């Protein structure tokens, strides 16, 4: 009975303190440092709010002005739960949709609050992994990726491309997509120099278009700080695909017609994606399109390989790695997303 009474008295004191703290909660800026044994707002750890509740000697709980937001309850700004209801609030985000930087700032605002004695348990602190949630979710979203590209490994003819890709993310790391590109070309300096200096006309093909079915895998993600102030998240992903394209012979002698080739083009790539908003990213990467191309035969005259069909039947084949650098903006649909896990 004595023990029970003692506990009842303690509970009464705690209840009074809570009532007083609720009544006196005010927007005081810069709360005092939390002393040992201070009161921790319920749900604060999970909510990741900016505020830190602290119990002073008088029993008054000072709320950080940013966290208080005029409410009398000890509810963290970043979400979490209200003390009274005990409910876990999932839609804690007060940010506007698409405000990626606000989410990042909220994540950075997590302040550890020491609350009382720490009981030693057999589990080491090293066993507890603290991982903030990803600031950008892609699962079940569609990426619209208009892009431009340029040749990286052809010193005779340079191709620039304009194109785009639709990709649907089955999970947060796996996507399937369809891409298409249109090519325009210019001749590089050696194309003219070889003809003039070595007296040899180069045999080159131009590329007209290509399309492919691609699969994307995102194994790497991270964040970096720009000039020690602005945080930007990014990720790296790999691409593999299969597609078709068309190349066209550039005739050495304009008197003879060229011909086109339909190419089977597997591709491999590595890319980086930088997140600017919940609906906008910047992508850049390298893609290697592999194919066997057919080139104009060496000997063409009025009596040999004069027609396009004849020349194509005697064409020389060669394996080609067409490595392209690609860059573009990605637009994401839907333009926002909801988390299904706690912060």
């Amino acid at each position, binding site marked *: 009975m004595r023990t029970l009474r003692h506990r009842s008295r303690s509970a009464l004191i705690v209840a009074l303190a809570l009532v007083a703290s609720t009544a006196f909660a005010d927007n005081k800026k810069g709360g005092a440092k939390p002393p040992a044994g201070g009161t921790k707002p319920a749900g604060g750890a999970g909510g990741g709010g900016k505020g830190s509740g602290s119990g002073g000697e008088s029993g008054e709980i000072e709320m950080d002005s940013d966290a208080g937001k005029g409410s009398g309850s000890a509810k963290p700004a970043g979400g979490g739960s209200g003390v009274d209801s005990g409910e876990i609030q999932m839609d804690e985000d007060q940010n506007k949709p698409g405000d990626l930087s606000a989410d990042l*700032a909220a994540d950075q605002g997590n302040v550890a609050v020491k609350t009382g004695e720490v009981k030693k348990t057999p589990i080491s602190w090293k066993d507890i992994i603290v991982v903030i949630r990803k600031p950008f979710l892609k699962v079940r979203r569609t990426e619209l990726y208009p892009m431009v590209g340029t040749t*990286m490994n052809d010193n005779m003819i340079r191709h620039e491309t304009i194109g785009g890709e639709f990709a649907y993310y089955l999970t947060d790391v796996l996507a399937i997509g369809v891409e298409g590109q249109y090519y325009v070309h210019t001749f590089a*300096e050696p194309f003219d120099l070889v003809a003039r200096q*070595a007296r040899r006309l180069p045999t080159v093909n131009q590329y007209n278009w290509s399309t492919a079915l691609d699969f994307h895998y995102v*194994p790497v993600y991270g964040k*970096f700080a720009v000039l*020690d102030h602005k945080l930007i998240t990014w990720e790296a992903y790999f691409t593999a695909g299969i597609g078709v394209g068309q190349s066209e012979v550039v005739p050495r002698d304009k008197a003879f017609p060229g011909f086109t080739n339909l190419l089977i083009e597997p591709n491999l790539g590595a890319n980086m994606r930088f997140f600017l908003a919940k609906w906008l990213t910047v992508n850049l990467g390298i893609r290697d399109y592999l194919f066997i191309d057919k080139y104009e035969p060496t000997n063409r005259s009025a009596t040999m390989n004069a027609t396009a069909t004849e020349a194509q039947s005697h064409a020389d084949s060669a394996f080609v790695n067409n490595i392209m650098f690609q860059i573009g903006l990605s637009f994401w649909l839907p333009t926002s997303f909801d988390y299904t896990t706690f912060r």
Partner: protein
Amino acid sequence: MNKTTLFVLALGALVGVTTTASAEPRRLSSLHDDVAVRHRRLLVSGRFEVAPLFESSIDADYQHTVGGGLKLEYHLGDMFSIGVVGVGSTSLHTSLVDKIVTTLPDAPNMTKDPSKDQFLDHLNSMPFHSAAYVSLTPWYGKLAAFSQAYVAFDFYFQAGVTFAMLKSSCPPTVCSDTHPGTSVMSGGDTIPPDNDPKNDPPLNDGQRVGLYLGGGIHVFLSDFLALDLTVRDYAFSDNPSGADFNADQFVGTSQTLGDDNRFLHHLFFGAGLSIMFPTTVKRTP
């Protein structure tokens, strides 16, 4: 006090209150002026970086340049550093050269086609190149690979001056023209230029000074080891083919058409292993 006076006083008070209210600075989060990352490991600040590296040219026209070298860099702070890089290398023919050479005649003939030796001996190589630079590291961060490996990284950009040694070795038997593009007097006779650039000395060897630009990434494997991946551009005057570029029928400097050497970019990809000294790191507050 009449109504007008009261009105003026009330208006003045209102203006004063409004002014005071608007003069108050906007309330911001305490994190507004804070650094992006606290307790950050200073992986480069105040440290000396030694990086043995491998380097290969990107999209070279006639000769691939492949070699190894060393990068020495001192990081003055978290963002700025100064350094030097030097690479010794060897050269390999590109596929373009191989394709051309197989079609050339073995010996000079009466046509304008160069012989195999004339074509190959005019090409130059780059046995050594180096740069001194200042570096800016504006971005740093960390990444998770396969949700398992968490590593720090930074991006950096470099600019400076480059020094390169070029080499071409065209023997007198091949480059036999002693007065390319000019007339000479011999025994009272004037010998005009032969207008044949194939036998002119290539004039594409020696030392070059130019501009250097670079950009790369450190991926920290530990507190003192980092994978260093860099794209470098050594830009200087060069004529890789050693042949007549400006169509003035000789190799050299023309009064009207200029020099056959021109300002060219030499792109390289480098991969190295950076070792940081001291091997321990400090942390920010």
